[in-house]
Each structure stands twice: as C-alpha cells, then as structure tokens.
C-alpha cells in the first residue's frame, strides 16, 4: 500500500488491524487507538481519500490502497484552525478529528453543495463519529466552520 505518499511493502498476518499496522509497523502513532471497536473515531484515517475507522479495518483488506494519516496531511489549515479555536484540550482525539473533517469536507464537496452552507447542526451530525471526552466540541465546530469560509 501507499502510506502518506510512500510505497510500503509489508508482510502482515490477516488478523492485524490497519490501526495496529500503521502504529506498530510504521510508527505512525498519530493514529490513536481509543476504543478499538469503532465507537470513538480516534483511529480515523483516509483510505483513497475516504474516512474510515482503521481499528475495524483488517490491514489486508486495504492492500494496494492509498492511506493517509495525520502525519501525511501536515501542515493543514484545519490544524491551524483547531489551535486558533481551542478545538482540543488533551489532544488525543485531534488527529482523528482532523482526518475525519478532511474526509467530511470531501464528502460534502462531492455532493455538489457549497461548503460555506455547512452550518453548525450539519457539521455536528457529519462529525458525530468522532468523540471528544474533553468536550471541546464548540471549538471543533468553529475550527471546521472557519476553514469553509
């Protein structure tokens, strides 16, 4: 697979998750393992540009795909916006939030809609797969809104 633009040839057991492969084999620890059951979104990465939960993805299913983690998107305007709007406290969910927001904005654009039309309620709904236990949701929504304006 290609990971953050680099070709990686990896021999992996079929039961290894994409999250574990990225973290343990490639050292991409920006991929966070929060719940390991698809409930928190901290492990969100992009596969061919589409946001997925890497904890529920068997790495072998993503053979040949282009994977992008937070390490591969930096520097990104969303990162600056998260800092500017206090879109985090502890920061553990932030890499997943930002990868998810990138995927979300791409999904929204693919529907043909104007990004400036994204209001708070729609951002919250579209981002509901990413939990923030510090409760920095207001800042997260403001940061996302900021990059669409």
């Amino acid at each position, binding site marked *: 697979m290609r990971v953050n633009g680099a070709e990686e040839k990896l021999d992996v*057991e*079929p*039961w290894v*998750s994409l999250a574990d492969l990225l973290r343990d084999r490639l050292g991409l620890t920006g991929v966070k393992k929060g719940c*390991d*059951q*698809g409930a928190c*979104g901290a492990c*969100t990465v992009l596969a061919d540009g*589409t*946001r*997925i*939960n890497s904890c*529920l*993805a*068997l790495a*072998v*299913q993503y*053979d040949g795909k282009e994977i992008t983690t937070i390490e591969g998107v930096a520097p990104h305007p969303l990162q600056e916006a998260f800092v500017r709007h206090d879109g985090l406290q502890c920061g553990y969910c932030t890499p997943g939030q930002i990868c*998810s927001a990138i*995927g*979300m904005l791409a*999904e929204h654009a*693919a*529907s043909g809609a104007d990004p400036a039309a994204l209001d708070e309620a729609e951002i*919250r*709904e*579209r*981002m*509901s*797969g*990413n939990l923030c236990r510090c409760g920095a949701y207001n800042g997260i929504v403001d940061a996302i809104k900021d990059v669409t304006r």
Partner: protein
Amino acid sequence: MKPFAYLKPADVDEAVLAVAADPGARFLGGGTNLVDLMREGIERPATVVDLTALPLDEVHDLPGGGLRVGALVRNSALAADRRVAARYPMLAQAILAGASAQLRNMATVGGNLLQRTRCPYFYDRESACNKREPGAGCDAIGGFNRSHAVLGGSGSCIATHPSDMCVALAALDAVVEVRSVRGVRRIPIAEFHLPPGDTPHVETALAADELITAVELPPVPVAVRSRYRKVRDRASYAFALVSVAAALEVRDGVVTDVRLALGGVATTPWRAREAERLLLGGPANEEAYRRAAEAELAPAAVRPGNAFKTGLVRATVAATLRDLDLGEEIG
C-alpha cells in the same frame, strides 16, 4: 483475535466455492461488525473470505422503476445515490441515521443485512446468552433490558435487531438475492430475518454457504413520499430506541396507500402490517395514527426496562405520519 486463514476471491463463483468447501469459513464485507465480534471472541471463523474484490458494488436501474443494489455497495454510496433519494427517501434517511460516516463508508449493504444484535449480554461473554451459546439461558429477560425488543421475542431471546437500513427495506418489500453452489435464490425481506423462537442463534434464512449478491428494491410509488424517523439517547451515532419508516398517500383526507415498519422495538425489522391494514381507507389524522400503532402493539410483551417503548412507538408513528400528511397538504 483468534488467528484465521484469509482468502480474497476475485469472482462470485470462487467465493461461493471457498465457503462451500469449508464449514469454518465466514464471508467478510466491510468488517465493521464481524471484525469487532472476532476481536471480542464471539465470532471465531477458521477462514475469512474477503468479498471486497467482487464486482458487486454497483446500483442498477430495474425495468418499472426499481433498483438492483449490489451486496458490496457501501452504505454511504447507497445513501448518496440520487435515485435512492428520489424514489425511496426513507431508505437514504435510514442509512444516514445509522452509525457514523466512517462506518457507513466501510459497511456494505450485504453486511448490514447480517448485522448482529447489540444486546450487551450477547457481547459480554460472562453473561448467559442463547444467541451466543445455544441453551445457556438469557440474562436480558430478567436483567437490564431497556434496549430490548417488545415485539417478536421469545422465552429464549429478546435481543433487538440493530439495523436502520433493514427497517426501510422491510417497508419497501425488498428482495434479497443469494448465491451458493446450488444456484440462485431470492428471499423476500419479510422471510429473511427470523424471529428467535427456540433457536435465537439462527438469525436469517441464509444457509451457511449462501452469499448475498444483491438487494432488489421493487417500484413503490408511495415511497416517493416517505420518511425515516429515529428516536435515540443522543442526537446522532446511537442505536434506535424506536424508529419508524413510513410512506403515506392521502387523498381528500383518506389514506389511500401506506407503508409502515418499526425498528428498535423488535427482534427483526418489523413490518407493521396490522397498522397498515387499519390505516388504509381510513382518516388521515392523529387519532387514527395512534390507534393503528396501538393495534400493532397488541402482541407486545413489555418488561420493566423497556415498557416505555410502547408509548414511544405510538408517539413516533403518529409524528412520522403527521409529517407526511402535512407535506401532502402543503403540496
């Protein structure tokens, strides 16, 4: 996770043969449910047959206005399909009401049909569960059963079917096409999911070696005016306490066509046929909607934890139908 052999067939024949030859094999779609269950040790396949290379990921028009949905179409792709939004809005809304965007991007249509219950006793290997271990008993029946079914349960199991998508499919009379080495079979959605009875571990009419290849949606003109309404503990990303898929046609204050199905309250996606029967030809008003819901709930068996669901069904059915008949007046 228990180690397993992994196969990734390139065509349907190869996939079907692989599972026919190996009773310990399981098909894998997007992985959002099966991988989780394997990690918890609830599913322990010897072989996993990955379906994601099969050419079953397209939506095609059928003569007469129906749609044929490949089993590997991702949930997000089906919800975004403009034909679905135009012809079956309840289906697009149901899919978007389920899970999160990340999960919908991974999950397949075939996999959604085979989702297993989220009953906490099923997931907890220390608890008694007839679905996980036939004959072990059911800790949910006398336990914490707030999320459990009031319709379709048995003395063996009251686990709720978790899917939103399947509730809309039930209302739309979808047909599930399956393939095995014996050939092709078409199973009406009403016969696809099985009530628990004495065998709650047998959840569908699928044989172990049968592969879902497609879901066919027949033309349903009334579904152009349809809604999916879901009530849950938080505004998004939670399973339903109660959900309603409804389509309604009203002429001169009289119900001339209706489809109604319930989620979150039954052991299978629940087509509310008794309610439909009462509504059809009757007045389109709040009282009739509530009475129809009440009639559908006549066989309900409630427990202290889930008794609130009957009132919630009445209110949600009425609210969903009211939305649709108000839309009718506005035109």
